């Protein structure tokens, strides 16, 4: 089986969120970069588990980004995966990114394309769904469980207030979230091996962006907390009802 795992580079979860150039660009000054947690913890680790069960599985990793994304893709290779592809373009437009991944996918025959639920920076949750339209493949999103059985995938996906089990014949696209697998720490052997695993750099295909970011802004700061002593719970209820008007 051939699996393509989509890997995105995101700022560390504790990174200071600030903007430059008249609030049009994310301020990358001093920012530590990580693999998008949904891509790493859930989608990549589940792909590795599938390979551990069936060693004939091939795992390719793909990232769309400039050379600065290489440490991230190497870290992903240290966790597992056989080779990596980087498409050399930076874009904030999901459609441009999905087109790059789809172009690579069209030239190979992947049985399973895996993404994280969303990235923790732009939170668009677009790539999996867009790939399904471009490649005309089935798509199951927000999956928290995946079992392979020949060329059938059995998937649990989240629905409002519960879960649903789906069966899909491969090839397909899946987006992964919590429950799918457990976070792993790369070991020394993995880190050494990652250095020599192939990392192919591809030129992007020309695609027109459908959107552009015009301006960033920060939410207004809270004006300050109103403290209520533990013996004043009726007062708190009154405030919630009459002042905040939320109950």
């Amino acid at each position, binding site marked *: 089986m051939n699996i393509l795992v989509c890997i995105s580079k995101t*700022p560390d*979860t504790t990174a200071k*969120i600030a903007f430059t150039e008249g609030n049009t660009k994310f301020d990358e000054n001093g920012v530590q970069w990580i693999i998008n*947690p*949904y891509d790493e913890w859930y989608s990549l680790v589940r792909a590795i588990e599938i390979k551990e069960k069936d060693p004939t599985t091939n795992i390719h990793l793909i990232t769309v980004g400039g050379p600065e994304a290489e440490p991230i893709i190497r870290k992903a290779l240290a966790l597992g995966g056989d080779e990596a592809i980087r498409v050399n373009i930076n874009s904030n437009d*999901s*459609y441009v990114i*999905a087109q790059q991944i789809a172009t690579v996918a069209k030239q190979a025959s992947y049985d399973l394309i895996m993404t994280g639920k969303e990235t*923790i*920076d*732009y*939170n668009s*949750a*677009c*790539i*999996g*769904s*867009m790939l*399904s*339209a471009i490649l005309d493949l*089935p*798509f*199951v*999103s*927000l999956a*928290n469980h995946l079992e392979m059985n020949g060329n059938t995938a*059995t998937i649990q*996906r989240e*629905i*409002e207030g*519960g*879960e*649903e*089990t*789906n069966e*899909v*014949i491969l090839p*397909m696209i899946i987006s992964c979230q*919590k*429950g799918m697998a457990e976070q792993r720490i790369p070991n020394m052997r993995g880190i050494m091996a990652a250095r020599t695993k192939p990392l192919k750099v591809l030129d992007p295909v020309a695609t027109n962006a*459908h*959107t*552009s*970011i*015009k301006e*960033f802004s*920060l*939410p207004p700061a809270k004006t300050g*907390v*109103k*403290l209520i002593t*533990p013996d004043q*719970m*009726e007062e*708190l*209820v*009154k405030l919630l009802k009459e002042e*905040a008007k*939320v*109950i």
Partner: protein
Amino acid sequence: MVLIYIDHSEKEIKKSSHEAISYGAAIAKQLGCSSEALLLGTVNDDLTALGKLGASKVHQLNNETLNNFDAKVHASLIATAATHLNAEVIVFAHNINGKAIAPAVAVKLDAGIVTGACSLPNLQNGFEVTKTVFSGKAFASIKIETPKKVIAINQNSFGIENYELGATIEEVNLPIPTASVKVTNVNKIIGEIPLTEANLVVSGGRGLKGPENWGILLNLAKALGAATACSRPVSDSDWRPHHEHVGQTGIQIAPNLYIAIGISGAIQHLAGVNRSKTIVVINKDPEAPFFKAADYGVVGDAFEVVPALTAAISKMKHNE
């Protein structure tokens, strides 16, 4: 025309779709065009009543098989219907199913898309929509450059408006593509309020010490009619189910009221809840970072404060 996709489950239209209809109707007003809804499948709701939310017409593809959600099939039908109906803007709720299909519909229509939208479009300089980014830590104003537009609106961010309309229902006839997904089991937790749809949320952290202590939190949630949530270590330790995990790597929510009990307020936790309208923090440590993000705070032992708050809520409800 603005076309709003109606999402449903168990034959009931989701609350997030009600909001999406009102949001779509407001865009239609801005653009001076009609707002119409699209339903794939069958529901028990009175469709003419969707006029009250702002839809003048409901286009229905009346076929039971579509009650099973299949992203590929649904996206393809929505795109075809949107093309037939000449829709300029297609609106989705940014909920579980919306996330699965809205981007695919955008691709099929050559439309730019903004997901996680939290404002009406600004038409001054083209068509710009504000969305949440960095898991709620910031906003970005995104310009859609294409003639057709797809917007998925964040839950609990627009509200419902009242129109004095009755919607007319029109049958849609489209060939239904072969299913790509077989739904073999649905497991819904009956009687529980889905977290993403909840107006009121009570959430617990490691400060509650262990799963055996969740009774006080559940009692408070019951008294309020609230959904329950938790911090990441709580769900990682299996004290609570995964679907309750909120934060940067869990679910992002924006209820009217979020009560945090024994949660320190780490940046990753705040990212998932800081768009809540009102935040109440109960923590025994006056230095807990969460107080900085709170509207109301109680410095005290949760094991005393929470039962007292529950009693006060019950008393208030009793007197209503």
